[in-house]
């Protein structure tokens, strides 16, 4: 086989697979912009995937029925708070575990690594018990505080900081800079990529939060987008177009964020693979 035939075969297979992979999402987006009757009429032909009879009616109707904007703002707010405060708490912990010398460091490091294995599902019940006793149910702290510290993020930061040459840090400390000042003014500016990686991994994972918010948001005021669309789809009357509109609306922000920070997201996934 020549290189050209190999390339042709690869391209053909890739095109077929790409179409298969993209079809469900394409149908979702296209249907959200179609009149309801058209969605069903087009179902049995290629027209199902073509944006015919473009309309925004589904979006208008859905937004009249549920406060999607509010759910979106809720999600953006609490997920950003988790991700940003997580950067502060986990980076500084990862730095101490990588570069500062103190008694018990190795023990803490092993404990942090061991904690990565505890599945959220197995602590669901007692976590709810604790949050309930703190009287946090249906308040922001219930959605945010338990998830700020993250053993995986601490580990990622630690691995990155290990590679920073000691000479840089030592010369700063000789100049009289405190460890905090060294961290903020020297280490942080050198570590943009790892901050971006941890941020987007954390953001995308909490954007999908579903099990926990069902439990701790009893009212409507703190509901996130995932709960919003889940409630909407169980709320009669059911219209395909409107449901596809809310699904598309929920997915767009995260796709944008992904495209923006794609490089760091992929780095996060692959570095976890190589170092794990």
């Amino acid at each position, binding site marked *: 086989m020549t290189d050209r035939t190999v390339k042709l075969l690869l391209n053909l297979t890739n*095109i077929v697979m790409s179409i298969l992979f993209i079809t469900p999402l394409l149908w979702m987006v296209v249907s959200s912009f179609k009149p309801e009757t058209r969605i069903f009429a087009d179902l049995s032909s290629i027209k199902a995937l073509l944006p015919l009879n473009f309309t925004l009616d589904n979006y208008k109707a859905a937004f009249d029925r549920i406060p999607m904007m509010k759910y979106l703002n809720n999600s953006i707010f609490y997920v950003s708070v988790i991700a940003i405060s997580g950067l502060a708490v986990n980076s500084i912990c990862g730095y101490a575990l990588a570069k500062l010398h*103190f008694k018990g460091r190795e023990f803490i490091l092993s404990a942090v690594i061991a904690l990565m294995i505890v599945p959220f599902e197995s602590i669901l019940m*007692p976590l709810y018990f604790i949050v309930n006793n703190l009287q946090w149910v249906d308040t922001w702290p219930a959605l945010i505080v338990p*998830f700020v510290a993250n053993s995986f993020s601490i580990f990622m930061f630690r691995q990155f900081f290990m590679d920073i040459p000691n*000479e840089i840090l030592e010369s700063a400390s000789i100049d009289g800079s405190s*460890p905090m000042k060294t961290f903020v003014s020297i280490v942080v500016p050198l570590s943009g990529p790892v901050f971006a990686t941890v941020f987007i991994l954390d953001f995308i994972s909490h954007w*999908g939060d579903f099990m926990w918010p069902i439990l701790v948001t009893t009212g409507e005021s703190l509901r996130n987008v995932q709960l919003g669309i889940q409630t909407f789809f169980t709320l009669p009357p059911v219209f395909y177009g409107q449901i596809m509109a809310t699904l598309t609306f929920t997915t767009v922000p*995260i796709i944008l964020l992904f495209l923006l920070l794609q490089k760091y997201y992929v780095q996060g996934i692959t570095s976890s693979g190589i170092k794990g």
Partner: protein
Amino acid sequence: MQTAASTKALNQKSESASLGRQKRRETVAGYAFITPAVILLIVFLVLPFLFAILFGFTKFNLLRPDKIQFIGFENYKILFQDSLFYKSLFNTLYFTAIVVPVQCAVALMLALLVNHRLKLRNAYRIAYFSPVVTSMTVIAILWIYLYNPNEGLINSALNFFGIPNQPFLRSANQAMHSIIFMSVWQAAGYQMMIFLAGLQGIPGDLNEASSIDGANKFQQLRFITLPSLYNVTVFVLTITTIQAVKLFVQPYIMTNGGPENSTRTLALLIYQQGFQFRNAGYASAVSVIFFLIVVFISFSMKKFLRDK
């Protein structure tokens, strides 16, 4: 190099004077830096974990903590006689046993497909990866409509090939397989990325040397590429397995465990026992079993890792 050397000299000069003070300062800073994370991890991870073990030995309603009763191993006794527990355990393991090899094989194939200098390579990658970024809630709802027995896109496609409408999620025989198919589609892009990183770590001269020796593309794949990916594969299998045993959102949204409990999983059982039936003691016992399964998987997979 020169700066490193001069720093070292400087270091030695001031060493005796400030070493003690500096060491103390570093210790204090070290503890201060880890404190916020450590406190949060203890309160919201370690403590709940210990509570889960403790609650497993009690009869307990989450909303009435004052009425907690210690009943020893009673929950475990009930659990090991509960057919629903066995059903959930079976479903969880069944899902895992199929999803893990299929998903990893698809992911490896996709990685091999995009690991070439093709013009549209980035577009292909984004196509494979877009379901990964989309949240599981969105995907589960979307696929309920794709799987619709009467007016679904998938049945329309099957009709096109002369296959009659299938019940998918409405059938006890097909529901779990429908969830498996969807889950593979959703997550294969994730494992693809890890395989891709592994592929790019294979030195190019290995393939070059072999092609000079007359090896064709398939021989290269069989004798160079796949063996080089051994450790990456073990890692991918491990994380996919751990991910798979947690199966919750798909059955919760799509089938609520039905039809006929054919999609009830351990995570769903924990949730329903604990929060819908207010049976926190029993749910905690299931949680402990669940945790042991995850630990067992992680450790047994580690055994397969080879030293490079």
